[in-house]
């Protein structure tokens, strides 16, 4: 009898849905069907049992081809590459659990590496704004149960977080929002008429790159001052109308995305969005949330904050303390200044998602990819180490976009002998300790688990 596993977490976007149902074959090895997932989530579960899945590390040969090697050799190679480098960079963590992120933190500290995660090229500016201005936010259930004015600013959940609007923000019927969408006024601010904008009650087609001006106009109006006839391509009347909607909302929720952080202004756009939220709290209840991209991209920010005090761009190369200074210790800037002499890409694809110039710089030195799948980074790597897929073959704690921790289960067994990120990095750590003739530090008396044993969690 195939087995139906319910309340399964989806390892795709920052909405981190945990209501998937997965039908698994008798032997617990095949995924037959997924329910409730969006098209992207479904793809992940079905892709996992693809027969071409890699089961061994591949090492680049002098002729440019890949040769399969044993995990021991790959672990030794990685440990030595990290030790030989003056300033290695370990980057990624879009698709890893917190257990893995924690294990990598231990390795990075030991190796004197820079630790960075995908926020560095996504919501990093939001962190900068939070450092300056704070973050009045809430969990997504508050949005579902209370919010009656929803603002999507520079984000497009219909494409990037396909079930966000149905689970949390527009459609769900919550405790104080019993009429669902009818209860809510949805406002979208975007230079394009995105599919999210089409759903909205009002779309402000802001002039691209002029978000700061428009935020500023809202703050100005809410503080009772005059604004020009047109700001950032939006007519005054429309701005006044939307400002009034916000002022009269019982619970205003502002979601923002890459439209704010990827363009001119960066952190300043987010900073003023936070200020607007603070201002709104003088009139009513208002909250703001970054639309984090991946199902656990909030995870490294949490884990490294409690371990090192910083959410990203954590430079541990000084040996005595952690240092963070985005612009200086951020992956792209480090790469462009040629400061990195070993690059480890974990659970992401820097090959596809970094500007190509940064990739070229990083490729001058040892380049290692740790990821279950073939991706652009793996295909230019000196070494590619496959690992189990979190949320499919490996359980673990992940942090949703609202920083709520969710314990993701696994639904099938991973390929035999393929380790999890945590197991792999624990073994790399032990190897580094052997090579440096030092004692490993397990703050919780933890011993490394050999890759061949699959742990029941």
């Amino acid at each position, binding site marked *: 009898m195939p087995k139906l596993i319910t309340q399964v977490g989806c390892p*795709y*976007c920052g909405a981190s849905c945990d209501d998937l149902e997965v039908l698994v074959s008798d032997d617990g090895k095949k995924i037959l069907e997924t329910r409730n997932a969006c098209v*992207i989530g479904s*793809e*992940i579960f079905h*892709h996992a049992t693809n027969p071409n899945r890699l089961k061994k590390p591949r090492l680049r040969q002098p002729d440019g081809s890949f040769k399969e090697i044993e995990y021991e050799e790959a672990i030794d190679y990685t440990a030595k590459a990290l030790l030989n480098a003056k300033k290695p960079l370990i980057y990624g963590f879009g698709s890893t659990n917190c257990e893995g992120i924690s294990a990598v933190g231990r390795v990075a500290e030991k190796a004197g590496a820079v630790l960075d995660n995908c926020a*560095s*090229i*996504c919501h*990093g*500016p939001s962190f900068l704004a939070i450092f300056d201005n704070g973050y009045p936010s809430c969990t997504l259930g508050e949005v579902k149960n209370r919010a009656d004015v929803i603002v999507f600013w520079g984000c*497009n959940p*219909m*494409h*990037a977080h*396909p079930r966000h609007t149905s689970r949390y923000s527009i459609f769900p019927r919550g405790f104080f929002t019993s009429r669902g969408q009818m209860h809510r006024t949805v406002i979208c601010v975007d*230079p*394009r*008429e*995105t599919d999210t*904008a089409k759903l909205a009650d009002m779309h402000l*087609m802001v002039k*691209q*790159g002029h978000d700061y001006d428009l935020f500023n106009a809202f703050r100005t109006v809410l503080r009772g001052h005059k604004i020009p006839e047109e700001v950032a391509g939006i007519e005054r009347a429309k701005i006044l109308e939307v400002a009034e909607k916000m002022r009269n909302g019982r619970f205003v929720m502002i979601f923002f995305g*890459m*439209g704010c*952080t*990827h*363009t*001119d202004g*960066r*952190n300043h756009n987010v900073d003023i969005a936070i200020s607007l939220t603070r201002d709104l709290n003088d009139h009513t209840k208002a909250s703001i949330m970054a639309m984090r*991209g991946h199902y656990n991209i909030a995870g490294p920010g949490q884990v490294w904050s409690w371990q090192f005090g910083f959410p*990203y761009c954590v430079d541990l190369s000084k040996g005595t303390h952690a240092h963070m200074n*985005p*612009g200086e210790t*951020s*992956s*792209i*800037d480090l*790469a*462009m200044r040629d400061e990195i002499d070993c690059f480890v890409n974990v659970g992401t*694809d820097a*090959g*596809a*998602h*970094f*500007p*190509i*110039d*940064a*990739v*070229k710089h990083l*490729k001058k030195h040892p380049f290692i990819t740790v990821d279950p*799948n*073939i*991706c*652009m980074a793996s*295909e*230019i790597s000196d070494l590619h180490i496959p690992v189990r897929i979190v949320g499919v073959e490996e359980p673990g704690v992940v942090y949703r976009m609202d920083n709520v921790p969710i314990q993701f289960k696994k639904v099938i067994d991973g390929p035999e002998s393929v380790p999890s990120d945590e197991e792999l990095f624990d073994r790399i750590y032990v190897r580094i300790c052997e090579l440096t003739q030092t004692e490993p530090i397990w703050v919780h008396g933890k011993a490394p688990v050999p890759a061949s044993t699959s742990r029941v969690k």
Partner: protein
Amino acid sequence: MAEKIVLNMITQRSIEEGQAMEKGKTTQEYFKACSVVEMNPDDMKRLGILINTNVKVTSEVGDVIVKAITPTQFCPPGLAHIRQGVWANQIVPPRTQSTGVPQYSGFPVTIEPARNERIKSALELVQGSVGLWKGGA
């Protein structure tokens, strides 16, 4: 009709890209989803091209050949969109305004027809840029 036009480029997510990416970045689906530039029909007219024409998009850091399509989500004149991914990142300026984040959106590009030019695969672009591409030119 102009030989080339200057547009403001943004590179963002799309569901087509997301789904194809999870299938695999070497798949035809990913190629189809991401090797396109969305631009307003008026801008196409200005450039004198038809839908599905290959164009060369050039930024301050490089160029890439992609196919011009009408936007699946409305793009006003003057704005162009390449879905996030390998093709977009051939032209994204790595400058970060000291924040760590490259200029993924809001950078000027020139777009010109490139009817006879071939769109390279993801692998060719990325491996090619680091001297690992073994396929044909």
